[in-house]
């Protein structure tokens, strides 16, 4: 599916640009996109390095394991393929908590650490495991209690109550999280035959 979407975006984009008579934007857009991607990756070096250090400390001191133990009933249900008290569980919880609190700078490194841990349990290293699919579904459908940026914009344009969208946001994400968990289960069953 990702191959298809990628191809459609590129081919369709070039065709539309050609028809509109502004084919030259394609070249610029391609280089801009590449440049932007490298900038993002480079800017990640600092925070990932920092959080990897902190997480290693948390792991060695037993805090990650303790966290994994605390949340094990929920996590065992969501991630049946991950052993109980595996460090991946702790990292997943840290990532989701950071997401919920809107701590973008900590959430991404925690997420990448969780992916590293999940990859150690993965049997075919170039293919997403069930647990990874579940984790990413939770991650992208996860609640943010304070959508800081959009509240700032609402305030800037003179909203009388900039935070009144927080309630609707939480309800909407709660909805999509439940749907994501259910659909994940269904797709897991559907794809489990193809995998082995």
């Amino acid at each position, binding site marked *: *599916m*990702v191959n298809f979407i990628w191809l459609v*975006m*590129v081919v369709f984009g070039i065709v*539309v*640009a050609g028809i509109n008579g502004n084919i030259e*934007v*394609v070249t610029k*857009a*391609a280089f801009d996109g*590449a440049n*932007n*991607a490298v900038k*993002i*990756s*480079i800017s990640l*070096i*600092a925070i*990932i390095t920092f959080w990897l*250090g902190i997480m*290693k*400390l*948390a*792991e*060695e*001191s*037993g*805090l990650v394991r303790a966290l994994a133990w605390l949340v094990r009933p929920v996590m065992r249900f969501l991630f049946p393929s991950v052993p109980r008290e595996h460090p991946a569980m702790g990292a997943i919880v840290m990532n989701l*908590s*950071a997401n919920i*609190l809107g701590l973008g700078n900590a959430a991404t490194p925690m997420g*990448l650490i969780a*992916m*590293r841990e999940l990859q150690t349990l993965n049997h075919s*290293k170039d293919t*997403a495991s069930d647990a*990874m*699919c579940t984790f*990413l*579904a939770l*991650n*992208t*459908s996860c609640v943010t209690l*304070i959508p800081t940026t*959009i509240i700032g*914009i*609402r305030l800037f344009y003179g909203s*009388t109550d*900039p935070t*009144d*969208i*927080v309630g609707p*946001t939480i309800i*909407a*994400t709660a*909805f*999509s999280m439940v749907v994501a968990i259910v659909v994940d289960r269904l*797709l*897991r069953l559907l794809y489990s035959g193809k*995998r082995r």
Partner: protein
Amino acid sequence: MFEFIAEMSRWAIPVILLIVPLVAVLRGVKVYETFVEGAEAGFATAVKTIPYLVAMLVAISIFRASGAMEVLVAALSPLLSLIGLPAEVLPHAIMRPLSGGAALGIASDIIKTYGPDSFLGRLVSTMQGSCDTTFYVLTLYFGSVGIKKYRYSVLLGLVADLTTLVASVCIVRTLF
């Protein structure tokens, strides 16, 4: 309630940074050495995401700059108006999973045009707050561990995004 959560966000990271090294010391961990040992993998992890992000962001960038996005919006608009989504927020709905920055730009434009406390302003705020940049997250997270075959995760991400969209429209219509 809101103030409490905001306060929690402010304190969360400093508290983690205080507790982790303290507990580590009490458990006899050599804090400095262990930190460095863990941090070593940071550079490689970040750099590993470059090819994946380049591939995805180049495609998204071409798609946006060429005007293909507008064509897709026009094609999808009858379909999405079926679920009661106003045409004005459609570009945002399509852009949200692809590019966080672009979606935010569209959102602030709508808020500016229609006012933050209008139906459209509230709807687009809810959509911006509740959805995530699904494609970016998948590319980055899978890229960091070298996974190329995403299996059903793209489909799953899109289903979740669509659910959020429908839920946002219903909830904002009901509450305001």
